[in-house]
């Protein structure tokens, strides 16, 4: 398998490397803390590139999770023209400028490729209600509002909570934690009643039987049918729409270079990350963490980003999270 990947890689190499290639170590900038979903993904790519010799220069992971990820955005913005830095971005590129008025616009960066889409799942403690309907009924009947844990304030998790309230009529108190991992353990310890973590953030506590997935916020079920726990696979989780809550949200995972890099430099990274998506490491990671594989670049990517931006903006406005 690995030999095949290397062979495949070497076939790709010839035309691309005729142009530009990095002359010093490439920094992969993570807009989140250590151990979070972005960090895990960056380390997977670092390992995939190093093990399959996809690049001559080494790749280093640089954690810039300060200020809820704004640190990474400002860092990329100020690195204009530097082709040795690549950002692994998610929906914060739309949301942070709106909620905290960070002077940043993703259009100032150079888009490379969208490499995955991340799901959101509604989880509760395994001692809690067993279905979405029971969960909503319990939340409505509760004397004090159900506590919903999530990552950060006025971000994906918070937006989803607001829409969950709108569609079900139940009230939640939203508790913003510093990371998805923290939200997961707080749910296990019964300090919150639910969370809307990404699959990767709750995977291990689900396998240990400590939390229960209620529904996934997507149009269709997750495709991976291999058993994750003794009885369930990702594909066994119903969509929230099936369960009567029509809320959908997918989060992009995309690579960006700083602004004002040359087309040759951009092309090198498009090739590089395309090769990464062909590796066994990438495929394995996608399935394990229940990510949706996707590869968009060039015009397709820009069109996707524009649509995604508009949708996020509409959600943020409706939730009342846009700073005045």
């Amino acid at each position, binding site marked *: 398998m690995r030999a095949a990947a290397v062979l495949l890689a070497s076939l790709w190499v010839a035309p691309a490397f005729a142009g530009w290639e990095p002359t010093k170590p490439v920094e992969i900038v993570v807009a989140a803390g250590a*151990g979070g979903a972005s*960090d895990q993904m960056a380390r997977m790519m670092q390992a995939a590139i190093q093990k399959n010799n996809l690049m001559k220069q080494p790749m280093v992971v640089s954690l810039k999770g300060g200020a809820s990820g704004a640190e990474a955005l*400002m860092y990329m913005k100020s690195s204009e023209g530097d082709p040795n830095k690549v950002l692994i971005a998610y929906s914060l590129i739309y949301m942070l400028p709106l909620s905290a008025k960070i002077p940043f616009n993703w259009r100032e960066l150079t888009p490379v490729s969208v490499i995955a889409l991340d799901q959101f799942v509604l989880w509760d403690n395994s001692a809690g209600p067993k279905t979405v309907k029971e969960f909503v009924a319990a939340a409505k009947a509760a004397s004090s509002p159900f506590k919903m844990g999530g990552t950060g304030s006025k971000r994906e998790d*918070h937006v989803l909570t607001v829409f969950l309230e709108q569609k079900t009529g139940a009230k939640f108190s939203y508790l913003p934690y510093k990371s998805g991992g923290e939200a997961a353990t707080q749910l296990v310890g019964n300090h919150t009643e639910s969370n809307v973590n990404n699959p990767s953030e709750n995977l291990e506590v689900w396998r240990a039987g400590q939390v229960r997935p209620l529904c996934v916020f997507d149009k269709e079920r997750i495709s991976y049918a291999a058993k994750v726990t003794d009885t369930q696979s990702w594909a066994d989780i119903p969509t929230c729409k099936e369960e009567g809550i029509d809320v959908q949200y997918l989060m992009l995972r995309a690579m960006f270079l700083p602004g004002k890099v040359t087309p040759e430099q951009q092309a090198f990274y498009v090739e590089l990350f395309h090769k990464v998506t062909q590796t066994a490491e990438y495929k394995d990671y996608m399935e394990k963490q229940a990510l949706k594989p996707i590869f968009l670049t060039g015009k397709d990517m820009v069109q996707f980003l524009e649509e995604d931006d508009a949708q996020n903006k509409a959600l943020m406005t409706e939730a009342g999270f846009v700073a005045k």
Partner: protein
Amino acid sequence: MEALGLLLHGFAVLLTWKILVLMMAGLVLGIFVGVLPGLGGPNGVAILLPLTFTMDPTSAIVMLSCIYWGALFGGAITSILFNIPGEAWSVATTFDGYPMAQQGRAAEALTAAFTSSFIGSLVAVLLITFLAPMISSFALKFGPPEFFAVYLLTFCSFVGLGRESRHKIVISMSLGLLLAGVGMDTVSGQLRMTFGSAELLRGINFLVAVIGLFGISEILLTMEERLALRGHAASISLRVVLGVWKDLPKYWVTLLRSSFIGCWLGITPGGAIAASFMGYNLAKRFAKDPETFGKGRIEGVFAPETAAHASGTSALLPMLALGIPGSGTAAILLGGLMVWGLNPGPLLFVEHKDFVWGLIASMYLGNVVGLVLVLTTVPIFASILRVPFAAVAPMIVVSCAIGAYAIQNAMFDIWLMLGFGVVGYVFKKVGIPLAPFTLALVLGNRAEDAFRLSMIGSGGDLKVFWSNGLVGSITTLAVLLLFWPAIDGLLARIVWTRRASR
């Protein structure tokens, strides 16, 4: 005993030449990064992580955790010799360690630091070995109110048990809390006190502050006073080492108390920093002659070092068992585990026995080898003191600057470090203690978040801090400690009047 069998199995996994060589290499690298101020454990492990991608998980974790142990040992060296904490948790070690070096007892202080590090780690490893399943369920009991109560306890113990006058401690702590507020506020998602500057978005990193406050200010003071490093190089000999060891049993209460505090705070991510301060303050509190602390008392080295290392080691337990890192280095190791295809969590102990018990066995072995290694190299480190100040000072400043820069790769942090150097100088001149400032900078954010999350959860009701036995007893203890001097005085008076009436 199932645990014992598994542990023996772990040793069997370890005892190969390849792993032993990696272990030594890791320890030496670790001591090196521990000695450089600011580089420290987390950065050292982060820089060396990619080296291990091609290794098998067990070799990789052994090497990385040995870097971690090495950094834990190394952090004490600069605290004692130069009054510059290599790591934030070594700050408390400087209180008595540096005066000892000034009195020409550097070797004794270093031996004490290393030995107590070893004891602290050992206690924590024993705990991990035998109590792993129970402890992970204990950590799950911690929600926002419990976390806040622990932070409150740390702050209160400072005010109540501190050796400086209370108002100065409170001033120092408040300034620290104020600076901790700079940057993004997690709970509201808004920026605070950044004044439109992109550099201030990150907030103020406490390591940058620590390097400036302690390191740079010390250089400034020395320059003003006499242009020579205080303290004398001591020749470490087997006799000094044995002498310190012979006295060890006398301090068993301190060692035990600090180990306990360390383990407790390591498991409930209070962290090694809080642990080292608490260990020190409590040792002083319970001493018969507290006024001798801060003037070069060996117990003042034992207490914080034991606590810091017990905490640093036990911080790995919640990382393995729950996937919550108890310290910065544990967080990087967590990233490593994922690269090697291991997901930390309750099932790790079931599904990857080789790995987990190999790691635990490496904690025993790594600590023994580490202790021998640092003790034999003490003469090398102690001889730094013989180098003239004019040659050493620039090297220290450069090393501080590199350390400050490396934390976030930001030039701004070097200016910040210099700024804090001046602040530290002024504080020392007017007699405001630096430790409460640092503590507030480290824990301020977390304490604030925990408090506000508790308030959101309870609908603004302060009774949540007495809502169950665990949180209630910690909060009550915190309040008692805050008013300890008054309570102590009252108790003394009662005893006195009783005696008088008899």
